[in-house]
């Protein structure tokens, strides 16, 4: 069958594989979902006891122990790894990633840690996609698509939201909207949604009622968007800050996770709403049953943010989608309470409406992916009538959030390491080329003791203007002779016999090594104004790289990257 598949047209082949990936990724999602419900119910018998506050600590510790000692997966939270794999590694992901985070996050969340199942599901789905792609012997370019399929399928299945899966993958993971990606990703997403519906029914997670939206509400949206953006900025900074400080704590990773868990458990004693993925909170807000004053809403909001930051920052395993949704709905609630108190005369559309918008605002602000926020909220609440307000909030929120935090949570880490390479950019092309490919080795090497006359002979035979000088004994690179520098006295017969190469060579030359990034090489080109640079490794001259050759390769690379 494999052989038959390989004969198929590339697009058909990808579509077929997308279906397979969709099915498997959906099963991973459903398994996690079922597992969460089961463990949660089993634990709920003990939740009323006084010692319940250690559950999150236990869960977090177990999850960390599982990751480090059983699955031996030292990776991070998942999504950045998927993006890294797509942007730099041709979509290769380890097989163990397909289950390790699932188990770890099951332990974290079911025990009460404040996190969501999405990031683990995304990396599982992506890893399933990657390994299925490898199984079918796909090349890098196509495997990237199957990784995207896996991620989309996982999101689609876990939220019963096919469009969100597609949009999230293209916007946040692949970073490119091209038909080659769109079609297989959509198919995987649809298949996964269907599989999840067959296995656990077609439910809209948070069904909302109809709203009466007035101009007042639309105007209020702008205020809510700004608030949501601020909340997302605080959440992102809190997360970064806490994971930074937890890394500096002494002790093994599982101990740190346990410390975070204890803190979350203690918070849960007072405010049980902050525990777990927190979908119950969203449900009550959407169903307008959440009764609290401004102050309480504000406190729960702050506590949920802190709990999330502690859970994930301390090394617990889990995603940000669900906490963002909860924080968002609380933000909306908080905003609604303020409005209702400040302007009681206006007939507001209700806490459900604002909760819903708050979710879109915070999720877009944190992921900096407005369309993902829009479609996620619309699909999980089934309220297409609010599309207009949702788009408004999402877009404003992203704009404000980007002003303070230039990149999304997923990209921050990669950008800091310089590993985020967006497709079809200059960096993408440069990152593809490597030094060995553009190295020119047809150079005439000269010795320092040569007379100018001998050099002239070599110049006549060579088509280059640069001549590397090597030490005849050690073979070390000493410098370069530039034809331009010596042209004027090259043919002076008197000088030809008296001047030695070492007297005319340039010694202080910037050189580059073979494992240098091309980006760095270009910095040197720009700074020195040179047209070509010697490549020197461990003191030995290997060859030249020149702008002309790079241009040739660069152009070919551009042409090759075209989809036709």
């Amino acid at each position, binding site marked *: 069958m494999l052989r038959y598949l390989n004969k198929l047209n590339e697009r058909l082949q990808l579509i077929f594989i997308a279906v397979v990936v969709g099915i498997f990724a959906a099963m991973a999602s459903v398994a996690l979902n079922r597992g969460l419900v089961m463990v949660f119910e089993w634990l709920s018998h003990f939740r009323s006891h006084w010692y319940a506050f250690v559950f999150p600590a236990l869960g977090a510790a177990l999850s960390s122990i599982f990751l480090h000692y059983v699955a*031996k997966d*030292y*990776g*991070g939270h998942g999504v*950045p*790894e998927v993006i*890294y*794999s797509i942007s*730099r*590694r*041709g979509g*290769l*992901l*380890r097989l*163990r990633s397909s289950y390790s985070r699932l188990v770890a996050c099951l332990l974290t969340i079911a025990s009460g840690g404040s996190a969501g199942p999405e990031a683990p599901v995304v990396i599982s789905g992506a890893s399933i996609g990657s390994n299925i792609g*490898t199984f079918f*012997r796909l090349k890098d370019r196509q495997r990237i698509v199957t990784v995207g399929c896996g991620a989309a399928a996982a999101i689609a299945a876990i939220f019963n939201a096919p469009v969100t899966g597609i949009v999230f993958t293209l916007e946040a993971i692949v970073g490119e909207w091209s038909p080659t990606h769109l079609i297989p990703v959509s198919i995987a997403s649809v298949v996964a949604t269907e599989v999840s519906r067959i296995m656990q029914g077609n439910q809209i997670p948070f069904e909302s009622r109809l709203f009466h939206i007035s101009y007042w509400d639309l105007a209020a949206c702008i205020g809510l968007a700004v608030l949501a953006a601020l909340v997302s900025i605080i959440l992102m900074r809190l997360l970064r800050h806490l994971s930074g400080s937890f890394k500096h704590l002494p002790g093994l990773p599982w101990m740190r996770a346990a410390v975070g868990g204890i803190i979350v458990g203690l918070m849960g004693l007072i405010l049980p709403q902050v525990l777990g993925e927190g979908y119950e909170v969203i449900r009550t807000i959407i169903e307008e049953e959440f009764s609290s004053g401004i102050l309480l809403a504000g406190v729960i909001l702050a506590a949920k943010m802190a709990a999330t930051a502690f859970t994930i920052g301390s090394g617990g395993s889990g995603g940000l989608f669900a906490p963002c949704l909860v924080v968002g709905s609380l933000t909306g609630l908080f905003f609604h309470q303020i409005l209702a108190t400040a302007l009681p005369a206006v007939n507001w559309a209700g806490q459900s409406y604002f909760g819903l918008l708050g979710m879109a605002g915070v999720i877009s602000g944190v992921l900096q992916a407005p369309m993902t926020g829009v479609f996620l909220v619309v699909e999980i609440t089934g309220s297409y009538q609010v599309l207009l307000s949702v788009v408004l909030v999402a877009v404003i929120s992203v704009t404000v959030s980007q002003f303070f935090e230039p990149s999304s949570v997923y990209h921050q*880490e990669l950008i800091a*390491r310089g*590993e985020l390479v967006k497709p079809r950019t200059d960096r993408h092309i440069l990152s593809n080329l490597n030094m*060995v490919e553009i*190295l020119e*080795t047809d150079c005439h090497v000269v010795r320092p003791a040569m007379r100018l006359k001998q050099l002239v002979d070599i110049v006549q035979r060579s088509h280059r203007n640069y001549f590397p000088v090597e030490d005849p004994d050690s073979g070390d690179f000493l410098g370069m002779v530039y034809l331009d520098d010596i042209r004027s006295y090259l043919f002076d017969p008197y000088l030809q016999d008296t001047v030695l190469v070492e007297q005319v060579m340039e010694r202080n030359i910037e050189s580059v090594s073979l*494992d240098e990034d091309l980006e760095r090489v270009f910095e040197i080109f720009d700074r020195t104004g040179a047209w070509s640079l010697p490549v020197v*490794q*461990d*003191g*030995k001259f*290997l*060859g030249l790289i020149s702008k002309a050759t790079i241009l040739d390769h660069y152009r070919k690379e551009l042409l090759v990257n075209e989809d036709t």
Partner: protein
Amino acid sequence: MKKQLLHVFRNTPFGREVLMQSAYFCRKTDTLLRVYIPRFRQFLMYFQHEIATIELDKSFLRDPQTAQEHAEQIIRSEGLKPSFLTPKRYTASTLPDIPIDFDYMTCPRSISDLSTRISLGHLGPKVRVIIRNAHFPVLIPTPVYKQWNSITVFFGGSRNARKAMRVGAELARVTGMPLYVFTQAEGRPRQYYERSLVEGGFEDLLKNKSFEWMFFEKGKVRINFYQVPHDSLVIVGAYGHGMIKEVLFGSFMEEVQTVLPNNMVIVGPEVAM
């Protein structure tokens, strides 16, 4: 361009022996020795079809303060310049990616399990993953430092054996050491092997009798192995016949690595011809 050998250093007496082996290999073959001193328990190698996750056993991380110093000492004692590899890329903050564009890599017989399991006949699973995926041959040294003064290629006529032959011939050329070719004729005539050599582009070697051919038509392989010089670097191709047959009947490489205590270079299936 100078070839490069990747060595993962472990700061233990055993690690010292292994590094001395690498250094000897590099000195003899004029190869640049690049040493990675691990800082984390795992590293990744992104091969073309698979990511190899190498879990190092704990001893690799022992006493990092003296590791670099020890490594430098050993390398300098062989008259080489130390060159250390710092990973540039990370899949996650504690998960460095080690580049794969080397020409050789040294692996102890086992890299993940405890280093006590270094007996013959045992190749750790991670070492196998590397051999299966790498486009470079893998040097598997003896547990104790042992110099070698000749090269022996195991040649069974297959495509992979020809790859091994190419590596062996190249090593013999740069080291100037004598080249032996070991062939156990499995019921095939000598012409078959000669033709395979010619097809592999070794006609000149064959004509000029540049190697000594240990050609065995009789006897058991395991017994004939005794004829391999004790101080010879053994080159053997791995996975020549397709995986299923290998799993069922074992491969020649397994036979060699179970019986011979020599230093070995294993030429995997992804090594270019």
